[in-house]
């Protein structure tokens, strides 16, 4: 077992970073990266790799890093993961690769995500992730990708490398999906996302923004008159859920998607230099406890809210957000109002939020998911004085594509039904990522994009035979 402790990530101090949008985690320097890489035991049968949804060859890339062979390190990474700078930052590593690392059994696992980020950042800064090292395959045909989130971008990257002509259609004016409009700059700088997208463009991927499929073109038109051999749908889980409690339409109540889109995609934090405004209260309640809720809370704080509380009906142990993000949020002064259930949003005569009525909960018997079910404590209602509420209670699938594509099977939640390989009920149409699984993770969406790319390759080869 390694006797050296896992190396901490240098960070901006909490009191400074809670006032700016610069990245919180600063990244390892060369020395720390080397020292952390040296902790890896180079297991012949690496458990860590099995924990990674795309099967990154972890010992290999770490060995190259240790040997100072940075070009080889990035090639090893990119062989399985086309967005390492993104995954190194936002993957829930503690539940994936790092959870399985053998060092974690009795001590602390290797900081795989941080090393992945280090290699990807190094490669970007030193222009090592060159286009020339990419090999072109023999495939020929045209593939349309719908949606430019991690699923779509990964499928696009793999297919263009296989030799296909690939066009990505994106409804918004910028490519990247949640990486651009959802995850804030302080966790994932937009410059990094754009760099990855530029790499894909350099490989020959065509990106058409402002094209909403189901409206501008339908799937049948893409396969018909537009002449595509196959289509991959990666439209994500963009449709915000509401609680259906009183007061949700008051002014000052946002769905997290709107709040984050205004700030990230539209850069409302620079208003009035940019034209899109965003409202910020003095005292903000964010309902929900996932990554989206943490991002919304920390964003509100950065925009000047004095008090920001996470309102969640279960306890801290059940919070679905990454541990690291919860810690970061707490350090930045975000309050956790746990075992607290929102009942109604209260407003004034002008229609603005003035409070959130909640009740206290206690944990009862475990429910179907094995989590202890929160039960209301009778008579425990009280009103939190807040002037802004953000709802971050999950997102469902946007129905635009499904409702305009005859023959495309969906499940009762409206998600597209697809096999492990991404095949849908419609020939030539593949799907993957959040649109199939419901809101999940960046890396699982990428894994789905990857499998679908392979399936599309087989499908087109078969068709051309």
């Amino acid at each position, binding site marked *: 077992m390694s006797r050296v402790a896992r190396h901490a990530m240098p960070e901006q101090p909490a009191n400074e970073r809670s006032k700016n949008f610069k990245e919180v985690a600063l990244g390892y320097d060369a020395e720390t990266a080397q020292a952390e890489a040296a902790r890896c035991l180079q297991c012949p049968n690496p458990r860590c790799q099995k924990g990674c949804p795309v099967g990154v060859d972890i010992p290999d890339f770490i060995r190259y890093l240790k040997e100072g062979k940075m070009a080889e390190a990035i090639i090893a990474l990119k062989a399985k993961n086309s967005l390492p700078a993104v995954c190194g930052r936002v993957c829930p590593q503690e539940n994936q690769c790092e959870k399985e690392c053998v060092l974690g059994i009795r001590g602390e696992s290797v900081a795989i995500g941080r090393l992945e980020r280090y290699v990807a950042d190094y490669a970007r800064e030193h222009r090592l992730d060159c286009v020339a090292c990419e090999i072109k395959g023999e495939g020929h045909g045209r593939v349309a990708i719908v949606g430019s989130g991690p699923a779509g971008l990964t499928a696009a990257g793999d297919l263009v490398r296989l030799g296909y002509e690939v066009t990505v259609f994106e*409804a*918004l*004016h910028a490519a990247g999906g949640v990486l651009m*409009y959802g995850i804030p700059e302080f966790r994932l700088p937009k410059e990094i996302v754009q760099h990855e997208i530029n790499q894909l463009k350099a490989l020959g991927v065509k990106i058409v*923004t*402002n*094209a*909403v499929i189901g*409206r*501008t*073109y339908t799937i049948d038109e893409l396969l018909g008159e537009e002449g595509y051999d196959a289509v991959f749908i990666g439209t994500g889980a*963009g*449709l*915000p859920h*509401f609680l259906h409690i009183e007061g*949700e*339409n*008051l*002014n*000052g109540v*946002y*769905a997290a*998607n*709107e709040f984050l*889109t*205004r700030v990230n995609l*539209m*850069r409302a934090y*620079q*208003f*009035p*230099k*940019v*034209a*899109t*405004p965003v*409202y910020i209260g003095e005292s903000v309640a964010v309902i929900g406890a996932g990554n989206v809720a943490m991002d919304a809370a920390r964003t509100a704080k950065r925009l000047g809210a004095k008090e920001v509380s996470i309102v969640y009906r279960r306890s801290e142990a059940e919070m679905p957000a990454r541990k690291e993000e919860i810690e970061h949020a707490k350090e930045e002064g975000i309050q956790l109002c746990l075992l607290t259930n929102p009942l109604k949003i209260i407003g004034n005569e*002008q*229609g603005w939020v003035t409070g959130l009525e909640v009740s206290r909960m206690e944990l009862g018997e475990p429910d179907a998911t094995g989590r202890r079910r929160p039960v209301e404590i009778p008579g425990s209602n009280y009103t939190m004085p807040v002037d802004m509420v953000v709802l971050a209670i999950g997102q469902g699938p*946007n*129905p*635009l594509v499904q409702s305009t594509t005859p023959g495309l099977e969906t499940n009762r939640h409206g998600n597209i039904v697809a096999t492990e390989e991404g095949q849908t009920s419609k020939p030539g149409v593949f799907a993957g990522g959040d649109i199939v699984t419901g809101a999940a993770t960046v890396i699982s969406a990428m894994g789905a994009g990857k499998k679908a790319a392979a399936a599309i390759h087989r499908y087109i080869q078969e068709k051309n035979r």
Partner: protein
Amino acid sequence: MAIVLSKESLSQFVKKYVVEAPRIAKKCLPGQFVMLRLCEDGERIPLTIADFDREKGTITLIVQEVGNTTKQMGETLSPGANILDVLGPLGQPSEIENYGTVVCVGGGIGIAPVYPIARAYKEAGNKVISILGARCRDLLIYEEEMRAVSDEVYVTTDDGSYGEKGFVTDPLKRLLSDPSVKIDRIMAIGPVIMMKNVAETSRPFGVKTIASLNTIMVDGTGMCGGCRVSVGGENRFACVDGPEFDAHLVDFKNLVQRQQMYKGQEAEEYSCGGQCKCLE
């Protein structure tokens, strides 16, 4: 990127733009809209497709200058200029069938978006009665176009400078009360207060009334939830479920309230010097 082909003033605060957008022109139907962003720092705003020419590949936008972006359009978009982003066609197209007799009510800038719908009603075989309202004669737009697709036209102005003095609801009420006229459907587009009053006027007569709602929007694709409106006690997204809804079910009070959300932040001064009640 979309190129502006022509620009024309229709009234003091209203301009008409013909924009090259072949893909949108090919697909769009009456009642649909586009989202547009002028420049990198610009806001995304929704605008109805007031007309389209599938052969020439153009769409027509009629824009009232009320704030930041719409004024910037007026100042910077000369023929030959580029609009950075135009997304569409968005929203559900109007339901067009042969209903019998349809009354199309357009108020102020709302006359422009009602025009392609009125034309489609006419083409579907309906008798089209149009009621056009404006604050004064100079602010009345699209009268010629509307006359060309209507069987009857009534015009009202608030100050009586043209047509009948009063509101669009006056001739509407007369028509609804006239036993010799059977009205099968009403389509209303205009300021929220006008649409609300049209709905209240027709409610006792039980005539199906449709309104096109101009909520604040961000993406226009159903992703942000900012355009939600309460219809029949249920929240619907104007950008994907609408923008047209059964006016008798719309919570107009909430719509007006939600439109005020950024009033404090965005310049309060309107080009009409605040006299125009068009935004209320």
